[in-house]
């Protein structure tokens, strides 16, 4: 199934200059980058993005972490992009992430875990439109 998913390279991975390494993992896995922008999330943007977690005990720390530095937001496109991206990222907890995954190689811990990826087709659509206007998403014919 041809899909799109939202990916965020988080402030910890940006701080360690792993943008290129992480984007390479996506591209080598057959995911094409069809939109990209670097931004520094405001507290409101981070709270809005993670609204689904707002009752969870980690919410405040997550919002604080996500606003500590710039992030790189991308839209990835490809066959089964949502599942493929999750496979390439590895488990949320880097200690449980399979060897060779992004989180196994670049994440500090479960809170500063290098990347975010949409977890369902419904959320991918919501998350993509949270950050990108349709004109900011490019057609990749090759």
């Amino acid at each position, binding site marked *: 199934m041809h899909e799109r998913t939202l990916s965020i390279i988080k402030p910890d991975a*940006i701080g360690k*200059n*792993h*943008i*290129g*390494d*992480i*984007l*390479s*993992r*996506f*591209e*080598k896995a057959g995911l*094409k*980058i*069809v*939109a*990209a*922008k*670097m*931004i*520094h999330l405001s507290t409101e943007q981070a709270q809005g993005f993670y609204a689904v977690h707002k009752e969870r005990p980690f919410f405040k720390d997550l919002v604080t972490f996500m606003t500590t*530095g*710039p992030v*790189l937001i*991308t839209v990835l496109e490809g066959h089964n992009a949502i599942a493929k991206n999750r496979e390439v990222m590895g488990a949320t907890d880097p200690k449980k992430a399979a060897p060779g995954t992004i989180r196994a190689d670049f994440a500090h811990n479960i809170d500063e875990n290098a990347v975010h990826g949409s977890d369902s087709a419904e959320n991918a659509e919501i998350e993509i439109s949270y950050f990108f206007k349709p004109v*900011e998403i*490019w057609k*990749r*014919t*090759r």
Partner: protein
Amino acid sequence: MKQFVLTFLIALFTVGTAAHAEQTLSIIKPDAVEANHIGEIVARFEKGGLKIAAMKMTKLSQQQAQDFYAEHKERPFFADLVTFMTSGPCVVMVLDGKDAIAQNRQLMGATDYKKAEPCTIRADFACSHTKNAVHGSDSPVSAKREIAFFFTPNEIFAR
């Protein structure tokens, strides 16, 4: 007098250091985007000590490409260059670091990929003289103009 000399030396050192901290504009061109080399090229910059201070994917309009390359408008390759640069999306970035302009040019390699040093971006990823994977500013004056061409100050981040 001793105090004066010390102050003078500190001032000299500060100015000297500040002169090396630069920003430059980099474009990953449509050929390299199509070939899915974005990550590999960005990794060359990061491993070369340059930090990504701004980034966005965009597709140049005809007008934007003509304006960006205005200094080449009388050159025979101008029309082909504009056509190529508008053939697909590209990734524009501000690279930040010590001697960023020269460092970026070193990492890119010669404009003609056949003359590019081994292991440079162009030696490894360029397909032809026009489809040469990357653009980089060639002087502090161009860097300033080119960065402002694509980014507003609030799109460029302190690293």
